[in-house]
Each structure stands twice: as C-alpha cells, then as structure tokens.
C-alpha cells in the first residue's frame, strides 16, 4: 500500500514538468525575439525553473519516504 501511495505521490512531478516546459519555451521565444536580452532572460529562467522544480522535489521526497518506510 505504501508503494501505491509513493507512486501516486511521484505523479506530483508532472505539474512542475509542465511549468518548466512552458517557462523554457517562453524564454526561448523571448531570446529569439530579443537576443540582446538573452543573459537577463536566461538568469531569470534558471531562477524560475529552480523554484518550480522545488515543488517537484517535494513530491519526489514524499514518494521516497513512503517507499522506504
């Protein structure tokens, strides 16, 4: 039962995955339109991706804690 719960918990990484995908796509578009601003956009993209990824990591950690109980 814990393993089923762990699998369900890890489904939570889907959200940040979608978010990072949208973020990276938009940032790439922005860099294509305005290559001069690329360093600024890239730095902000990395920060946003990190913050989105933190939520995915929370789901992952919950899954691991359940699976190794």
């Amino acid at each position, binding site marked *: 039962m814990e393993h089923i719960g762990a699998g369900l918990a890890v489904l939570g990484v889907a959200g940040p995955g979608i978010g990072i995908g949208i973020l990276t796509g938009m940032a790439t578009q922005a860099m294509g339109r305005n290559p001069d601003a690329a*360093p600024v956009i890239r730095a902000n993209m990395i920060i946003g991706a990190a913050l989105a990824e933190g939520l995915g*990591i*929370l789901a992952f*950690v919950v899954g691991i804690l359940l699976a190794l109980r």
Partner: protein
Amino acid sequence: MEQSSEARPARTRSRYLPLWIAIAGVLVADVLAAVVLGFPGYPPDIGEMIEPIAPHVLFAVGPFTITNSIVTTWVIGAVIVVLAVALTRRLRLIPNPVQNAVEWIYESLANFVVSLGGPAAKRYAPLFIALFIFIVLSNWSGAIPFFGRVEWLRAPTSDLNVTAGLAIVSFLTFHVEGIRVLGARRYFGKYFNLRGFRHGPIDGVIDLFVGLLEGLLEFLKPVTLALRLFGNVWGGEVMLSVMTALLLAVLPLPFLGLELFIGLIQAFIFAILTLVFTVLALESHDEEHAAAGEHEAGEEGPAMVKHAAAAA
C-alpha cells in the same frame, strides 16, 4: 601542406577507433560472461545497493554523532582551504597562468552576482562564490570511486542534514541582512503590515493578510532550498545505482555525465537563490520610500530580481 590536409581526414577517422573497439570489447566480454556464467544473483537486489537516506554514524562525541558526510565535509573543506591558500600565495601584478585562471573564476562569478542583484549585491559575492564552490565540489565528490560505497565517505550534499545546515545559513543570512539594512521596525513591518489601515479597514485587512502570507513563505524558503539540493543529489545517486545494477558495463556512463551536469546546475541554483532572496529581503515595501527614489542607482538589478520572483 597538401599532404597534411589530405592526411587529416584519415587521422580523425582512426582517432576514436581504439576507444570504440575497447567499448565493444567490454560489452562483448560482459555478454559472454553473462551467457557462460548465467546471471548470478540477477535481478540484483537494488534495495541493497541504494544509499540509505540516513548517514552512517561513525562515532559519537558526547551527544554529537560524527557521520560519514561530516567527515567528507571536512575533507572537502580542507581541499578548498589548501587550494585557496596555495593558489593565492604569491600574487603578482602581471599574473602567471594559474593566478590568471583563479582570477577569471572569481571575476566572472562576481560580475555575475552584480549583474543579477545590482550594486547592492556586491557585498554578498563572497558568500555566493563560497556556497557555489563548496556545493559543486560536494556534488561532484559523489562521482569519485568509493564515495558512497565505503562507510566513511559519502557525498555531503546527498545527506539532508548537510543541505539543511546550508539552508539555515542562507535563511539567517537573508533575515540578518534584511534587519541590518532596513532596521527591525521596517523589516518586520513587511510581514505585520498595518499601513493599509490608513486607506480603510478592507485595505488594511488585505494588506495584513498578504504580509502574514509572505512571512509564512519566508519559512518555506529554507525548506525548499534544502530539499531541492538533497533530492537532486541523492536522487541522482539512486538513479546511478539502479542504472549500474540494470545495465552492462559502460552503458551507465551517460547518466554519470548527466549527474555531473545536474550537480553543477544545482550548486548554481542554490547560490543564486540565496543571493536573490537576500537582495529581496533588503527591499522595503514602503511606497513613500520608493517614491523618494533613493535607490535609483541600483534600479536595474533589483527590478530584475523582482520579475523573477513574480514569475515564480
């Protein structure tokens, strides 16, 4: 000249040939051994190979336990200190190549800090660079043979205790710096915001609620900082163990490369987020203060940081 240009394609074609032959040979030997010997102990008990979450306790000093990740932290700290002292011992005005390389590392990171956080962030460049270098070496130490395999060595950042310690350092940094720059009254005024009551009770309640929510989020920052680093590094080591258990000899190598890349990116992210949160903590929410335009010099950097926080 013509001869060399003709000879070049032949040389590039044959340069990697021994490597490919070696890889193919290892794979063939693996398959042959598997066919001849059968698969002893296959599928392997992957649970046995996975690094446990809790670090191994080596010995206890009074109430404190010395774990293998602490020992590795000491080793990495000693390596950094020795390198830093050795590389900066005889500084010259006209640098030799080694000094040049070290200066390049420091300057490019420090310039990055200033471009991200504005002139106000220059003060935190040493913290940023120290965090970055320590975490990068910690992440990569997991790729050294025997780290995580023998019981007194383990990549420090694959232990939640170490990443939580680093996150507490960041947490204290942004709040202490915020109080130092803004003063206690204005700093805590950001979270217990009563200024909205000037514009009426509804505005006041909304502002108070938003401020309290922001204060709650402050305590989530170190948690996500610690869990992000731990989850990436430890999860990467678990992935490497599983891939090594499932695949033949050299096939897990690309995953090792991926892990090295992720280790670099995560160290960068930890350092960047510490810097960004510190710069954010330095900003007051006082509208009058912003209207007075005292921060015009540093306008570009903090504005950028603000956008990043809004995107999150």
